[in-house]
């Protein structure tokens, strides 16, 4: 069986699980794991959504101008949802989108009304608690004209469950002059399979920044968000920070269609390979003149047991464009390790610091709270040999 293929039939429906009443029913260990993902009472946020298996457990907003609902409620509430539902991602895309279209568990709907710029993040958490289920979610985020939203999504599984599958369809719409910073910090399990299917549409002057952080083992993840920049001056950035472990198959892509003049994009990935198979794909398609795109992929190999593939692709349909890419795969420089050893660090400590440094990407435009969360995740992940 190809690594991309997953036998959907072997997973149970998430709807068949026992439903906890609220978050207090979670064990201390589970609460700790969610805290690690940033679901911490002490952190300021504008709103939150927590879904366990198929059940939304928490859905609240703290300020005006923000709407958060379980998506199943929105179908009854808003007629306009049909303008967004399956419009950025096709339900026929593959077996995973079809599975979500046929049997939806739930998901979140978040909308920021025109002109509202939210200061603190909105946090969502999709958590799998039950063994051997497929969690099928569909999320829609709309950032209306001139609005701003920082959305942090944390996904995780129960610390002790075996096999599980997460399929997440996400459709994001950034209207004229809006800004969406979308960040995923994932702590999957060594037996979790993950299939996010994401589509993004950005209008004139809008900005979309996506950061994907996965520093803990996952069995199999394959994703390739497709972003269309439809209006002049629209921008999109994709940053992924990945640690790949033995037994893991991590295939992260990103495709940006520059469909209007003066649109810009960058796709940056940093991958540390301890083992397993890591594929970093990026594709930029220039469908209008006067556009700019840059792809950057760097891999650090820490073992002979792993495979790293960097696949950059640039397509242009016009001559007046600026598309560039750079890719590099290599090992840790011994000179750097020795330098740090001369400052009193053991070989392991030195390696860990170099890896952390390698994975530290300065991301323009992300809120300090998110940067702090990424830094914290980097601290907690064991990044030495």
């Amino acid at each position, binding site marked *: 069986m190809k690594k991309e293929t997953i036998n959907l039939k072997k997973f149970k429906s998430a709807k068949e699980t026992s439903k906890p009443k609220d978050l207090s029913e979670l064990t201390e260990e589970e609460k700790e794991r969610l805290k690690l993902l940033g679901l911490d009472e002490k952190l300021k946020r504008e709103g939150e959504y927590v879904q366990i298996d198929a059940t939304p457990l928490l859905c609240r907003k703290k300020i005006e101008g923000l709407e958060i609902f379980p998506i199943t409620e929105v179908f009854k509430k808003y007629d306009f949802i049909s303008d967004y539902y399956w419009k950025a991602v096709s339900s026929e895309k593959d077996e995973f989108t079809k599975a979500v279209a046929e049997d939806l568990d739930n998901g979140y709907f978040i909308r920021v009304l025109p002109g509202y710029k939210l200061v603190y993040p909105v946090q969502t958490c999709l958590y799998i608690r039950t063994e051997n289920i497929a969690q099928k979610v569909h999320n829609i985020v709309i950032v209306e004209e001139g609005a701003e939203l920082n959305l942090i999504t944390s996904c995780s599984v129960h610390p002790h469950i075996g096999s599980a599958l997460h399929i997440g369809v996400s459709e994001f719409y950034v209207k004229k002059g809006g800004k969406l910073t979308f960040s995923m910090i994932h702590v999957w399990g060594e037996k979790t399979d993950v299939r996010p299917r994401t589509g993004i549409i950005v209008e004139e002057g809008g900005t979309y920044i996506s950061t994907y952080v996965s520093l803990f083992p996952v069995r199999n993840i394959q994703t390739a968000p497709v972003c269309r920049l439809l209006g002049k001056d629209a921008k999109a950035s994709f940053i992924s920070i990945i640690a790949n472990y033995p037994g893991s198959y991590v295939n992260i892509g990103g495709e940006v269609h520059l469909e209007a003049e003066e649109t810009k994009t960058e796709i940056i990935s940093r991958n540390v390979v301890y083992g397993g198979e890591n594929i970093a794909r990026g594709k930029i398609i220039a469908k209008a003149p006067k556009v700019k795109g840059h792809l950057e992929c760097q891999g650090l190999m820490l073992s002979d047991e792993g495979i790293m593939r960097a696949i950059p692709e640039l397509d242009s349909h016009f001559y007046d464009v600026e598309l560039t890419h750079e890719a590099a795969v290599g090992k840790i420089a011994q000179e750097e390790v*020795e330098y740090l*050893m*001369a*400052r*009193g*660090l*053991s*070989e392991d400590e030195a390696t860990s*610091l170099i890896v952390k*440094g390698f994975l530290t990407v300065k991301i323009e435009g992300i809120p300090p709270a998110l940067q702090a969360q990424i830094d914290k995740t980097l601290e907690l992940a064991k990044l030495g040999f």
Partner: protein
Amino acid sequence: MKILLEIKDLWVEVEGKEVLKGINLTLPVGQTHIIFGRNGSGKTTLLMTIMGFPSYRIKHGKIYFKGEDITNLPPYERAKKGIGIMFQRPPTIKGVKLRDILKLCAKENNIKIEELAQTFQFEKFLDRELNKGFSGGELKKSELLQLLVQNPDLVLLDEPESGVDVENIQLIGKMIKKLLQKDTPHKPRNKSGLIITHTGFILQYVAADLGYVIMDGEIYCKGNPVEIFEGIQKYGYEGCKKCLKRFSW
């Protein structure tokens, strides 16, 4: 006189090539010694071997630090025991800030990093990536700041003046003096230094107690550092060879 570092008949190979051929050296506590030598004479190899880097293979001989045989210890153990090195060409470490390294160097030393950096007008560099885009002088300041925080008993300085402009050399001299406790001449010293140089100009800023000339992996001459430097300036290293023929020791 208490001895801090003692090297006995040290033979070292780098990538299969014999570079050091029977070095003997004794450095007492509180003293600074300076080693002159051309590029390729074996100076850097000597410092790297004292620090314990694995690509410098000791074929024969011993290194004692504070009376303990450290010949087979890894660099971080030597650093913990009190040896620090200033690299001539330190590497850039991506994503790691100078501040991060300083915190690691400080360990339990209660040193106020911000204040110390301000003293040497280097506070703006604390949050920059280590050595990335630093000029020659900035690299030296970064190295010396790390050593000041690390506070070693033995400081190994590899060409401290190379690539430094006139404006910065005085400040670098000041930092080295502080590191070697030469800024408080009336107090007893317990810090020692081993400086290697091929130009010798550092002597104008940091006084040394004893000088050596190293050629082809051997120490050829030992004596007053200022006199040795004057001799090298006048006659070059070729002169050292002729001199040796006359006054072999």
